[in-house]
């Protein structure tokens, strides 16, 4: 419905000769953005109804990103609905579903942070799914374009050094039974298969993280299905609730079927 109204608005604008070009282009862009989101709703959510998510979830991203390969995104769950998972959609990326987080019993879903690649000026949608299977979406427009192609990082062999190595940092002091934010850093180039070595003319084969599983003493914290939109050397922040001292376990799988696992003591041993 909204899409149709915008298309009509855009048509009207182009017929009205007196309208400044910039405004006309903007209206056309908005119509195109709405049409794209409609397509994505179909592809990702099978046309399930999606409700206005203000009050349920918020998305924070810089309006103009410094580096299109590393656009920081913060997803914050608001209100008191029980949240099952969060989808992050970068509308104009060719692989638009950047990530799908699902939360386990040990999660504190209130804040998620990650960094994504963005191909073009685009809307970003955060879609929260409640435990009763309702979808709530919010959008934010981001101006970023490394659009050339995802930037070539350091050379391939260098980028693959320490592959799968992880670090974990607790951002809050540990108190048993209280939520704590953790920042997880994973060494992985997340090659998207579009980076060409200009000297050899060879594309670096795609190799990217497909999933991340986090658990605390065998209770699930979260599962992330990810994609080429995740930045290289991903940094992901999330919350969890440690009932007592224990171990946070992270398992990362990539498209080369490599599995990387690491366990971290919580709280981290002193020194």
């Amino acid at each position, binding site marked *: 419905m909204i899409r149709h109204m915008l298309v009509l608005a855009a048509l009207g604008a182009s017929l009205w000769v007196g309208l*400044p*070009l*910039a*405004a*006309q*282009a*903007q209206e056309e*862009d908005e119509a195109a953005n709405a049409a794209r989101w409609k397509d*994505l709703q179909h592809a990702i959510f099978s046309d399930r109804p999606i409700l206005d998510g203000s009050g349920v979830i918020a998305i*924070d991203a*810089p309006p103009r*990103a*410094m*580096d*299109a*390969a590393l656009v*920081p*995104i*913060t997803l914050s769950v608001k209100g008191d609905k029980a949240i099952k998972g969060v989808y992050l959609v970068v509308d*104009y990326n*060719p*692989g638009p*579903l950047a990530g799908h987080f699902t939360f386990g019993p040990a999660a504190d879903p209130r804040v998620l942070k990650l*960094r994504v690649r963005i191909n073009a*000026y685009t809307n970003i949608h955060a879609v929260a799914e409640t435990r009763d299977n309702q979808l709530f979406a919010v959008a934010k427009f981001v*101006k970023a*374009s490394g*659009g*050339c192609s995802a*930037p*070539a*990082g350091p*050379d*391939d*062999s260098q980028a*693959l*050094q*320490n*592959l*799968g190595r992880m670090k974990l940092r607790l951002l809050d002091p540990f108190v048993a039974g209280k939520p704590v934010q953790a920042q997880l850093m994973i060494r992985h180039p997340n090659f*998207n*298969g*579009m980076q*060409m070595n*200009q*000297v*050899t*003319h*060879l*594309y670096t*084969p*795609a*190799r*990217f993280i*497909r999933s991340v599983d986090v658990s605390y003493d065998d209770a699930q914290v979260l599962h992330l299905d990810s*994609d080429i939109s995740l930045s290289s050397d991903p940094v992901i922040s999330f919350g969890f609730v440690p009932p007592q001292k224990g171990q946070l376990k992270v398992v990362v799988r990539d*498209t*080369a*079927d*490599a599995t990387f696992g690491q366990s971290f003591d919580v709280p981290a041993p002193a020194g």
Partner: protein
Amino acid sequence: MLAALSAPAAAPAPAAQGGAQQPQPVAQEPPGFWTGNIDSPVPSTIHGGVVIHARELSTLLKQGAVVVDVSNAPRRPEGLAPGAPWMPVPHSALPGSLWIPGAGVGSMTPAFDAYFRARLAQATAGDLGRALAVYCHDRCWLSWNAAKRAIGYGYRRVYWFPEGIEGWRAAGLPTATVAAQREPESAQPPPARSPTPQLSQPPVPRPRLVVLDMELSGDLGGPEFTAEHAARLTMASARLRADLARTHLYELLDNAPAQDLIDRLKSQQLYLHECNGCDLDVGRQLGANLVMVTWVNRVSGLILTLTYEIHDVASGQIAARKSFDFRGDNDVAWTHAIDYMARDLQEAAAAAGTSH
């Protein structure tokens, strides 16, 4: 100034990752094509061409300029999860754009170069005086390289539009959906195969390279030069290997285990650099990823050209090729040319590896 721009203290955490907006740095024009990171600051000029902005370009297009978009086309990555959506958006471009992905890379195969030249000739009806505008994205070297290439082809009115599609949109100018020009089979870059990353065995080793002995073609100068040239080729081949070893770009393989094969091929072929892929047999026997053939074409005792080609063993394609003209058929000139070539390879690789 920066203090005035910085975010208030209450700003959420992402500010810490971004920091204050800095003025965009400007790069110097490189002497040749840019082989470094394509998504990095670009120069403010292009030698032999004109930098143009959105409004002027809009006027120029109305006057019949040919406009070429050299943005990359998205490629579906292998390994995408079966249910994951892959939905590249229709390519939005300046109306009437000729979209030729790949025409802006720093170094291209001779086949692609010939294709790009022919496609421009077709679009301009062979008129080197026709205005030609080239763009891709904001802050993207591909358009600079492609414009530079067009200048090299002899076009006299080449306009480079560095603001790209983003700048065009920001000026409120209309766009249109275009489809990529289909490149001929022979001009396509080789498939992405070598070197195969080893599963869970980081780091990936350097490509395994076989360096075949240098060869001499062209006007050999007569029988009195035969002994001199044989000695020079031996010296030059050793020099080449030593220079390449110093670059640490490759794992250089010992040819000795394949010497019988090499000898047999040499008895059957005039040149191994031009033997319909027989050099790949040597590469396979030695377990190499790449084979390098190098030859000097002697036009006269004064004018010579040193050329190398690196062949990908798995695909049989030319992975890299470059020629260097030099003067003087003597040990000093040859050595100088080989050293230069090795340095050039290393600099190109270093530039390609430059990160943000």
